[in-house]
């Protein structure tokens, strides 16, 4: 039997809003997936400039030390339930910047992601496929990974 709460999850999964936050080069491919050829609005995704109305935040590739507090602050301003999508090799382990002195290498330890899209940068198709996977998770009503833990709770921002 369809429960009322399930209905909310279903409705939420059909139109996830994504906060406009870019910290790295993968945001260019995000722009491409917004563009006419890939057009993620077909699937119900839309960018919103304010975190207060957003369901999803992207970790767009590299996160430098200086932008991390801003990223966490944006994340904290989002209403629950909030989900994190990590795009690109940098979000996983620093990727090509693994040796760099100013890039965070354990981003998903700090802010655990629900979906990770591989690639450097991932193609727009891959980003949309990753978001579709997240939709399923939202539909099932699973709690987001970042609400379960992560180093972000120990940090000031």
């Amino acid at each position, binding site marked *: 039997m369809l429960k009322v709460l399930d209905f909310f999850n279903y409705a939420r999964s059909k139109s996830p809003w994504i906060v406009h936050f870019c910290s790295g080069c993968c945001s*260019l491919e995000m722009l491409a997936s917004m563009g006419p050829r890939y057009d993620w609005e077909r699937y119900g995704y839309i960018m919103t400039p304010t975190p207060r109305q957003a369901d999803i935040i992207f970790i767009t590739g590299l996160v430098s*030390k*200086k932008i991390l507090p801003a990223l966490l602050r944006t994340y904290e301003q989002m209403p629950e339930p909030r989900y994190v999508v990590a795009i690109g090799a940098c979000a996983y382990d620093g990727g090509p910047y693994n040796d760099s002195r*100013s*890039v965070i290498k354990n981003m998903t330890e700090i802010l655990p992601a629900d979906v990770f899209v591989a690639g450097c940068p991932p193609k727009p198709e891959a980003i949309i496929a990753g978001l579709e996977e997240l939709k399923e998770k939202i539909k099932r009503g699973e709690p987001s990974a970042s609400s379960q833990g992560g180093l972000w709770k120990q*940090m000031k921002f």
Partner: protein
Amino acid sequence: MDRIKEVLNKFDMEYVEDYKSTWIKAKLKNKNDLLKVIESLKEVGVKTCSTVSPTDFIDENRIEVNYFLEDLFNKKNVWLKVDVDRDLEKCEIDSITPLMPSADWHELESFSTFGVKFKGHPNLRYFLISSDYYGKFPFRKDFDWEAHEQNLIENINSISDEFFEDYEKNEKTIGHEESKTVLNWGPTHPASGPIRLKVFINGENVEKIDADIGYVWRALENLVERKDFVGSIVAVERICFMDNPNPMICYSQAVEEIAGKEITPFAKYMRVILGEVGRIASHLISAGSFFGTMGLQTFLMWNLDIREYFLDVLEDYSGARIATASIEPGGVRYPLNDYKAWFETIQKAIDKFESVKADIDDIFIKNPLMSSRAKGNGIFTLNDVEEYYLAGPIARASGAKIDVRIDEPYAAYGELNINYVTCENGDARDRLYIIYKEIMQSIDLIKQAMKKIEEGIESGEMNPTKDHLIRMPRRMPAGEAVSRVEWARGEMLMHLVTTDKSTSPYRLKMRAPSVNHTMVLNKLISGKTLSDIPLLYGSMHICQGDLDR
């Protein structure tokens, strides 16, 4: 050139010699003479500082500071070297910023990363680096990175602390009189990338803009030191993905110069095609976001559609859309197995652009609403170009005839028919027009290069499956080189230093145009109103990737 040499020879120099066709390379013996040298160079027309690049020679206990000075309109360049002591306390030199304002942020960057103190700099402060590096100078060879990494969480917290302190300080100093406040424009503003403009406003009027940068600082210049010469292209191309091939061309040229190798004509023409396709892809986003900042997203969407076709060109060749890694020292990375099919893809992209060109002209370029906002707004004169070293499209919009492709031809540009593209007024509208004109110019260049390659292959002079790459030595001799290319946003200069039998760069300085373009924002926007910020910011075509590196 002779006059510049004459001037330099008056001082106590270790050597003064010619370098390439447009450069004079000199080394100053005594660092106290620096200001006098700069003053006399200014008298003979060398008025602009391109960048300042220190090199840390830890074994010889010295830091060599390289100044790249340019006479923009007469195409004469000076590469001046000075030694300073490596010791943190004695590591200081006179600042040239009072004489050449274009050196301002470059000096701050050198100070923050190498600890060279610039005496007499109007506002010497830590810059670009995040606050956990304050006083530690991360680009020095003896910096202990592993020890630094252990306190990650404290380091991050110190960055937040700095922000809160700054916030409190502003609250106190500004007070609550009048309508003064400090507005944070960024770091997550949708119209910009990650950059924070501290906008000091009084009501609607902007009094001052203080840019806080370093949000995408990846320490690329330092990162390449841990990669080999070919692997470095991965770091170099990531300076900015909007125009991906041109930084690799710049870096590869520097490596080839040190190795003393000449690439094949086929590879040269391939570099032209790839470079111009990258330029178009970048310009399309620039022009689109110019309208985007005014609140009209349609043009951006149209441009993204056209851009996809140009990205197809890169994807067909290299397999990647924007991170192509397609150019490496010695030529271009991949052979062209089926050149006709690839040329068809290029032709398809050009046809796509030309099919919507008339509509773009009518709807956007001649748009009266855009004109009424952008015309006469944010004017740069030729004098500003020289003083702050505005490069590329921004300079050409003001009528400056500057283009590295013509001034110091590289790749195959010397054999192609290319002219300066300029506008006259130097206002925000012209900075859109110039972008549009340059796309047309690039398409023309691509067509010319395609024709040359076709002719070469048909006559048997070029072999597209074998000529793409020449053999490069695995170990480089000691040397240094300066290489320049015309990047989508302006001149890119790279200074590469190698040591004997090395497998990775000893030092690579990347000079990118957005630094200067962000530097002038204060001059450009002060006195305007709040609503002008997105428009004028958008008209500068700034990319944070190359601003921070």
